[in-house]
């Protein structure tokens, strides 16, 4: 979602090179940042404030010695983004004297019902909770049925009534939870416009009758400038406690995430990363800021990898990715692991988004990647000789045809594999030579990042292997 913004900034910073920051080139940079943010749908006023702060700080920095001003500009933008996206991760306010009540609200079609199901599954699996879903959307045709189906899919009971007032249904739902020993209640409300006074009243009634511990605004990552107005109104009426950003698996730059965060001051709790009910992830501001800057979500990737493969092989994967002599053999091993991981990450495209700099891979490569292709590529590599695997240049037309035949794939598929491999190798090399990663994650690391890296090291992962000092 943030990749396009990441691409832009990466290019922008590469353009600045090591030259000195002058008021003129700051202006250019700042204008680029402004356009990028607007194209990412960051709210107009939020952009203005952001740009002003970046400008102030960047100009002040030119007097420092020993550090390339361009790097400092990167850092200024980065830090400002982190600040805008919010500080630390926030925890759910559990109710220790009865069920914890969650209420999902938002505009029509943003993903509330799906998020209810995802949250129920997540809390059941990760927190060992016993949720109850409550169908309070009596308006949208078949909305109750939808929640019932989702309830069955995540193996969580659903409380529903045939019709009636949402606040009464919700109150009875909470009572039902207490009666049946459920410790979490998730209220699925109907979508509504923030300017629909009557329906906004209805939400206040639901809130009044159920005293939710968490009220989450579900926001579509594709939303534009309207995000600010709607979020402000939902927050004014209900004092929401958090935001869920849905549909981040697309290519929306989700700039609204920044604006909503700044306008309401409320933290983004989770991001939805697909239609499947396990596709929900905690929102970590630092990761997203890193992603915006094209650093990739390294920490996220490692965590993901750990869920699927053991730590040792996760480290191996990562190290190989950044090894100088990266061969098709390495690639094949990775493909297999990636295949295991990809279901968790929303496909290979999703996984690449987490990788440093991979946001820059042309869409013609990432866009067409799917798991079937991974299988085909693995098969193709397996049909190559050792020589061909270490030195793919020798693969002429004849050899490619042989590989295609031997692996039951096609020459087109083999060509695609080789093209992707070449591009990825180039990409990793460029990143290393640019040293953006090294500069940001290496020498001038802040305390927090150092701590993060220490944490990872304790778990057997040394981030510094990945980032050559520059």
């Amino acid at each position: 979602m943030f990749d396009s913004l990441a691409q832009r900034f990466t290019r922008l910073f590469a353009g600045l090179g090591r030259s000195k920051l002058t008021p003129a080139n700051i202006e250019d940079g700042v204008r680029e940042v402004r356009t990028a943010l607007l194209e990412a749908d960051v709210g107009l006023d939020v952009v203005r404030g952001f740009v002003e702060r970046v400008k102030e700080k960047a100009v002040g920095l030119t007097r420092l010695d020993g550090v390339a001003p361009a790097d400092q500009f990167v850092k200024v933008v980065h830090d400002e983004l982190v600040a805008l996206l919010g500080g630390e991760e926030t925890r759910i306010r559990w109710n220790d004297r009865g069920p914890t009540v969650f209420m999902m609200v938002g505009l029509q079609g943003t993903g509330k019902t799906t998020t209810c199901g995802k949250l129920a599954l997540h809390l059941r699996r990760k927190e060992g909770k016993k949720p109850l879903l409550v169908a309070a959307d009596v308006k949208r045709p078949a909305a109750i049925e939808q929640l019932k189906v989702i309830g069955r899919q995540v193996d969580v009971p659903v409380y529903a009534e045939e019709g009636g007032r949402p606040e009464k249904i919700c109150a009875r739902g909470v009572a039902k939870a207490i009666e049946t020993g459920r410790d979490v209640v998730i209220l699925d409300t109907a979508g509504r416009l923030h300017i629909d006074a009557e329906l906004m009243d209805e939400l206040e009634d639901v809130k009044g009758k159920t005293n939710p511990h968490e009220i989450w605004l579900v926001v579509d990552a594709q939303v534009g400038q309207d995000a600010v107005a709607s979020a402000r109104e939902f927050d004014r009426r209900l004092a929401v406690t958090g935001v869920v950003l849905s549909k981040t698996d697309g290519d929306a730059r989700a700039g609204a995430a920044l604006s909503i965060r700044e306008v309401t001051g409320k933290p983004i709790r989770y991001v939805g990363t697909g239609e499947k009910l396990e596709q929900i992830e905690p929102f970590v501001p630092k990761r997203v800021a890193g992603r915006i800057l094209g650093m990739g979500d390294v920490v996220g990737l490692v965590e993901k990898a750990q869920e699927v493969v053991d730590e040792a092989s996760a480290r191996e994967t990562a190290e190989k990715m950044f090894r100088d002599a990266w061969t098709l053999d390495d690639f094949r091993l990775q493909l297999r692991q990636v295949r295991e991981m990809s279901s968790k990450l929303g496909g290979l495209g999703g996984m690449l988004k987490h990788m440093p700099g991979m946001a820059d891979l042309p869409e013609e490569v990432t866009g067409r990647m799917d798991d079937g292709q991974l299988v085909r590529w693995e098969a193709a590599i397996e049909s190559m000789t050792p020589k061909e695997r270490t030195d793919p240049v020798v693969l002429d037309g004849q050899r490619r045809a042989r590989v295609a035949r031997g692996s039951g794939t096609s020459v087109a598929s083999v060509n695609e594999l080789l093209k992707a491999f070449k591009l990825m190798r180039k990409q990793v090399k460029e990143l290393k030579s640019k040293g953006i990663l090294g500069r940001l994650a290496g020498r001038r690391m802040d305390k927090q990042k150092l701590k993060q890296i220490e944490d990872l090291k304790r778990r057997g992962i040394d981030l510094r292997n990945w980032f050559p000092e520059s």
Partner: protein
Amino acid sequence: MGLFDKLKRGLAKTREVLAGGLRRALFLGRALDESLLADLERALLAGDVGPRTTTALIDEVRAAWKAKRLQRSEDVEPFLRERITERLRSGGNALVRAASGPTVILVCGVNGSGKTTSIGKLTKFLKRDGARVVLGAADTFRAAAVEQLTIWSERNGVEIVKQAQGADPAAVAFDAVTAGKARGADYVVIDTAGRLHTQTNLMQELEKIRRVVKKAVPDAPHETLLVIDATNGQNAIRQAEQFHKAVTVTGIFVTKLDGTAKGGALVAVRDTIGVPVKFVGTGEQIDDIEVFDPAAFAAALFD
């Protein structure tokens, strides 16, 4: 509601817009200068027109001003509105009809944009002069999507062709078109599952639906409507590009214009894929549909 009423309502909307107080405050007694242009720029950006298109539009104004074709501040906004209207007008908003047999309308778009609801409204709109409509429930993925469309078919009293959740959507679409042909329907409208334009396999699935429909009626689908949520920002452009590439969109149905979102990204969408906007959704009820009116849309951007 008859077509005339709808038209009247559309006009009323335009008039309201023209009377907008904000506009007065914006232009009355002001000089035509860069600061005025900056305010207009803000209005466009706030309406999701996007930085690129906004810059292009403001540049047009500036050029006209420098060339002395624009001299008074109060002429600036009408000028700009006219530019936008012009961009949106070409291609018209009429539905394409099949030369013979049923007109097949394929409806697609990203998740939650309003496809199923818009089909419910469109069906009533098409039925207004007695046309026979058959619906095809080819969203076999989303929980209760078939039930949702079934309710809309009941509200409209039209036939629906459906299978269980998880069925092959292309097969459902084929059945619907075949059934429509056999029963002499005037329209077959096919609902599809929401999909993000970045999901290659799902976009291929949509292409397949289109191919299979052609097997039943070679020149179908006669209309491929892309449903775009007006609250979406610049991503709408990417959606339009990718859907157009996959299934050759012939018209856009913009939903949720009853909120405060302006849907300004449609200006760039129009520039990018060159496909006209045909319908507007203005609420969740069956009659909340209007034929797209470029002038009213452009005026609303400055509301």
